[in-house]
C-alpha cells in the first residue's frame, strides 16, 4: 500500500513540474506560436466559424426583437443627426482634398495616419473571463501580424496577441496590462496636444489608466476624446480609444492620470477591422514597441 501511495505522490510531483515548465514556457515573451499550436488553433477555428454563424443568427434575432421596441425614438434622434452630418461630410471632403493637395505640394506622401484595413469576424471568445481574448477568422494568410491594432466602428478594441495561418487572437483593451501600453493623445492646438501612455486596465473603475507625461494637462475636461498618437511605432495615429471619465493625480502629485472609458463595447463585438499601418516603424521603434505598445 505504501508503495502505491509513493507512486501516486510521484506522479503528482511530475505533474506539477510539467505544469510549471509549460506555464513558464508560455508566459515567456514569444514571437510566434509553435506549429502544433497553430495547427490546433486553425482546426478548432474552422469548427468555431461553422458553429458561430447559426448561433449568431439566433442571438441577433433576439436582440432585434428588443431593438424594434426602441425604433421610433431612435429614428427621431437619428433623423436630426443625419441632417447635421450632411454638412459635416461636405466639410470633411473639402478638408481631405485640401490636405492631400498640401501634402503633395510638400511632397509628403506617407502619413502615420494611413493604414490598410483587414476585415474580420469574431468567431469565439475565451470562456475564461480573466483572459480577455477573442478569436478572429483572419490570420497570417490575410496579412495579420502580431501587435496590430484592432478596431470596430466605435473605436479601438485591442491588439493582435498571436497569429496562426487562418485565425488570430485579439487581446482586448480590458485585458491590457503594464506591458501593453498605447501612446495616446488628446487633441489641442498645434504643439499643445496632451500626450501620454495608456497603462493597465482598471477592473474596479472599468476604465483604462491614461498617464499624462506632458505638463500641459491643466485644462483636461471630462468627455474629451483620447486617440492613439502613432508615436509608438505600430499603431497608426487617430484611432479613437475612449473618453475621459475622471482625472486623478498620482500618489506624488507630479503627474496626472486620466481614467478613460473605452468607446467600443467590449462585450458585443461581431465584426472588427485589423489595422495595418502603411508607414513602417524603424527597427529601433519596433524594439521599443515590445515594451511600449
Amino acid at each position, binding site marked *: 500500500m505504501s508503495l502505491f501511495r509513493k507512486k501516486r505522490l510521484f506522479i*503528482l510531483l511530475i*505533474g*506539477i513540474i*510539467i*505544469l510549471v*515548465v*509549460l*506555464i513558464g*514556457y*508560455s*508566459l515567456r515573451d514569444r514571437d510566434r506560436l509553435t506549429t502544433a*499550436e497553430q495547427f*490546433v*488553433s486553425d482546426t*478548432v477555428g474552422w*469548427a*468555431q466559424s461553422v*458553429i*458561430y454563424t447559426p*448561433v*449568431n443568427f439566433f*442571438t441577433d434575432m433576439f436582440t432585434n426583437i428588443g431593438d424594434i421596441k426602441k425604433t421610433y425614438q431612435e429614428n427621431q434622434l437619428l433623423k436630426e443627426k443625419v441632417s447635421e452630418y450632411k454638412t459635416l461630410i461636405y466639410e470633411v471632403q473639402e478638408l481631405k482634398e485640401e490636405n492631400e493637395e498640401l501634402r503633395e505640394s510638400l511632397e509628403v506622401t506617407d502619413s502615420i495616419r494611413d493604414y490598410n484595413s483587414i476585415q474580420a469576424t469574431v*468567431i*469565439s*471568445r*475565451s*470562456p*475564461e*473571463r*480573466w*483572459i480577455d*481574448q477573442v*478569436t478572429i477568422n483572419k490570420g497570417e494568410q490575410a496579412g495579420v501580424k502580431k501587435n496590430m491594432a484592432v478596431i470596430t466602428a466605435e473605436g479601438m478594441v485591442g491588439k493582435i*496577441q*498571436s497569429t496562426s495561418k487562418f485565425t488570430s*487572437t485579439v487581446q482586448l483593451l480590458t485585458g491590457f496590462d503594464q506591458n501593453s501600453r498605447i501612446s495616446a493623445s488628446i487633441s489641442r492646438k498645434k504643439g499643445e496636444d496632451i500626450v501620454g501612455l495608456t497603462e493597465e486596465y482598471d477592473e474596479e473603475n472599468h476604465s483604462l489608466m491614461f498617464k499624462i507625461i506632458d505638463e500641459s494637462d491643466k485644462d483636461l475636461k471630462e468627455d474629451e476624446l483620447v486617440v492613439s498618437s502613432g508615436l509608438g511605432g505600430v499603431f497608426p495615429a487617430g484611432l479613437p480609444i475612449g473618453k475621459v471619465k475622471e482625472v486623478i493625480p498620482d500618489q506624488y502629485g507630479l503627474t496626472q492620470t486620466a481614467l478613460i472609458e473605452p468607446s467600443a*463595447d*467590449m*462585450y*458585443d463585438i461581431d465584426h472588427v477591422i485589423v489595422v495595418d499601418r502603411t508607414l513602417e516603424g524603424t527597427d529601433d521603434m519596433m524594439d521599443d514597441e515590445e515594451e511600449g505598445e
Partner: protein
Amino acid sequence: MNRFYLPLVLFLVMVLEGVALELLPVNITSGKSLIISHWVLICLVFSAIFYDDEESNYSLIYAIIFGLLIDVVYIHVLGVYMFTYAITIYIIKKLTRLLHSNLASTLLFGILGIILADWLIYLIFTMIGYTDLSLGDYLIYRLLPTMLANIIFLILIYPILSKKFSQWQVGYSS
C-alpha cells in the same frame, strides 16, 4: 465506432464554449459577476461516472487531452486547464466507486468538480499574476455564479448524456 463518439462530443462542447458568452444577455456578462462555462469538465464528469468502468481510464486521458486543447485555443497559457481538469477527474474517478450512478450523485460530483477545478484555476492564475481578486470576492463573484450556471447545464444535459454515455461504454454493444 462507438469509441469515437465521446471525443467527438467533447470536441463539440469545447467549440461551443467559445460562443457560450454570446448566449448570455449582455447585462449579465458585463456585470461584476463572472460566469465561466466549464462544459467540458461537466461532460468529463459524466464520462467518469457513466462511460468508464473500474479498470478503464478514458475520462482521465480525455481530461488531459481536452484540457490541453482548451489551453491552446482559449487560454494561451499551456498547462493550466490540463493540470486542473486531470486532477479533478482523477479525484472524482476515485470517488465514483463510493456511490451509485444516478442524478443525485452526478450533481454532487458535478458541484465538487467545479469547485475543485475553478478553485485550482484561481490559485494558478493568482500565482502567475493574471488576477488579483481576493478570496472573498472570488467566492462571491466568480465561484458561486459559475457553479450555479454549470449546474443548470448539468441538469439540462443529464437525461441525454447519462443514457448515451452508458450505451457507448466500451464493450457494451460489441
